[in-house]
């Protein structure tokens, strides 16, 4: 039989999509959306952060739909996001007013407002719990509910930043409040040199693995060595949109869980030294990503010869959708361009050039 060019694509695609179900049909047990949303929260947080869309429910639905692939789930949420008209921009969020669930400083033992260890895997032994399959979800929930009911709620006191004291001391530069409308990279093409708002937005939406690797490279010597986590805080912040009839008023539309980091580095200040700050803020409990973002923010401010210090390199290669889209397109047929490449190669090898 002669070679058959790739055609009949329509039927092939339909069958291929059907076949995906095969991979989801290995059991009769179902994964409930509520369970993904509440028991795989860190995965949900990662997906929301890379998608730039805050909805635990939709993130859970997306994860279920694509067998738990992070990049596919991010893809689904991003595509959905494109269909939504953007009616409002929220007012600036003051993270000092965050309802903190965890807050640590690696710079100072004692900080105003106190260190709150909160929930972290940092100090767990990474030993597989072989009885995790016998865990009772209802008993666990009941126990936590009972414990909560036995406590009385504390008043939320705004928590000053660790960097505030250092700013007062003159060790960290102070800048005037920049209330310019931020550059929105989801509505505009990112241009270089990039505004800092565009940089931060891009890093916040970046692929976790990409920016972690970059930040790691900076720590290892391909950048300025070892910054200090001045503060890492994780908690809920309130979102408000302007009230259309009276701009001075605003409407509360809900809260989001975020992780925020400030990193300190030493930097030149003419003939003396100062401290420079790198900033990171991401959706969800996403600590290493937030720290990586802060490290890279500082590296980009500093500039230099290494990849993590190169703005265009960092900001154009970290988007989950863009990197995975372009890499996966290599699976598409390239018959025409390859033929052209062959032609170019053959011509250089023939005496007559034909």
């Amino acid at each position: 039989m002669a070679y058959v060019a790739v055609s009949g694509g329509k039927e092939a695609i339909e069958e291929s999509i059907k076949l995906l179900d095969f991979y989801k049909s290995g059991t009769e047990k179902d994964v409930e959306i509520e369970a993904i949303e509440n028991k795989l929260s860190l995965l949900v947080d990662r997906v929301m952060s890379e998608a730039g869309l805050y909805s635990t429910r939709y993130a859970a639905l997306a994860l279920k739909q694509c067998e738990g692939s992070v990049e596919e789930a991010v893809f689904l949420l991003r595509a959905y996001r494109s269909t939504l008209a953007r009616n409002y921009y929220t007012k600036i969020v003051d993270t000092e007013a965050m309802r903190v669930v965890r807050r640590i400083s690696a710079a100072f033992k004692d900080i105003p407002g106190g260190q709150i260890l909160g929930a972290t895997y940092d100090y767990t032994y990474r030993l597989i719990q072989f009885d995790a399959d016998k865990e009772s979800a209802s008993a666990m929930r009941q126990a936590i509910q009972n414990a909560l009911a036995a406590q009385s709620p504390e008043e939320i006191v705004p928590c000053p930043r660790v960097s505030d004291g250092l700013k007062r001391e003159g060790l960290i530069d102070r800048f005037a409040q920049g209330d310019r409308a931020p550059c929105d990279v989801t509505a505009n093409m990112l241009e270089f040199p990039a505004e800092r708002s565009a940089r931060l937005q891009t890093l916040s939406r970046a692929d976790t693995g990409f920016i972690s690797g970059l930040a790691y490279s900076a720590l290892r010597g391909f950048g300025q060595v070892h910054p200090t986590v001045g503060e890492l805080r994780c908690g809920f912040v309130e979102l408000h949109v302007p009230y259309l009839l009276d701009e001075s008023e605003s409407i509360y539309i809900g809260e989001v869980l975020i992780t925020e980091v400030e990193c300190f580095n030493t930097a030149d200040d003419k003939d003396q030294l100062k401290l420079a700050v790198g900033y990171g803020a991401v959706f969800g409990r996403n600590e290493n990503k937030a720290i990586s973002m802060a490290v890279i923010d500082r590296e980009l401010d500093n500039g230099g010869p290494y990849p993590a210090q190169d703005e265009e390199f960092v900001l154009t290669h970290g988007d989950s959708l863009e990197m995975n889209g372009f890499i996966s397109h290599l699976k598409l047929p390239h018959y025409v361009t390859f033929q052209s490449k062959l032609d170019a190669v053959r011509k250089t090898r023939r005496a007559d050039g034909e």
Partner: protein
Amino acid sequence: MVNKNYNFAFLDEGSKREIRRAALKAVAIPGYQVPFGSRELPIGRGWGTGGIQLTLSLIGPDDVLKVIDQGSDESVNAENIKKFVGICTGVKTTTDTREATLIQTRHRIPEIPMTNGQILVFQVPIPEPLRIVEAREEATKKMHAEKDYAPMWLQLYESLVKYKKVTVSSEYPCMAGGRYMMNPSPIPKFDNPKLHRAECLYLFGAGREKKIYAIPPHTEVVSLAFDDVPFERESFKGKKCRLCGSENTYLDEVFDRETGGRFYQCSDTSYCREVRSWS
């Protein structure tokens, strides 16, 4: 089957208007890459989302759409894009180049010359022609502003010195309207001359790179060449399509599964079918 859960042509009207504005600006400055707020689509970035966004923002209920990939209407990607636009618009689709009002393409320009009233939308992976000589957007933007195309000429010259041939294969750079160097998208050099003083409008969309550019009808488009080394297309001298016998089309090289023998057939499948129907 139209999916009523989404707006006509998927994107919200505000987004579509923004894309059309960028396209209008692109038409006003041939070859100039207009940045735009590229939207994410349910189809992979790098799989033609720039072209699809142009198609979605331009398409109306009366349009007739043709989608090709590698010249073929039936290839997996072409079918997939056609299906997507179908689901969110319900417009009529065709494989006939003459019947289409809007054609979206990857890597080819149809063999049948397109006419006034038709638009060809290209999917573009790397819109920047200078990217092969300069990695940074900040630098290439300045080079365009200053019309500083020396590094590209140097690249061509060096390949001549080294291989006695210009070895750029597809994505062969050209000058649009005498001002901007542009990347014709990864069409083969064979198709470059079709860009020159065409009857139809050519629109180029790069979704991942967030750029739109255009060649309006009758624009002068010149492929880069030296006075003493003329521009050269891929050569299929002495070869013809094994199906329709054409000797003047771009040919795909195919292998016989059993004998391992090599033969050729038209990359533009609808043209090939048409030629066969004549006999």
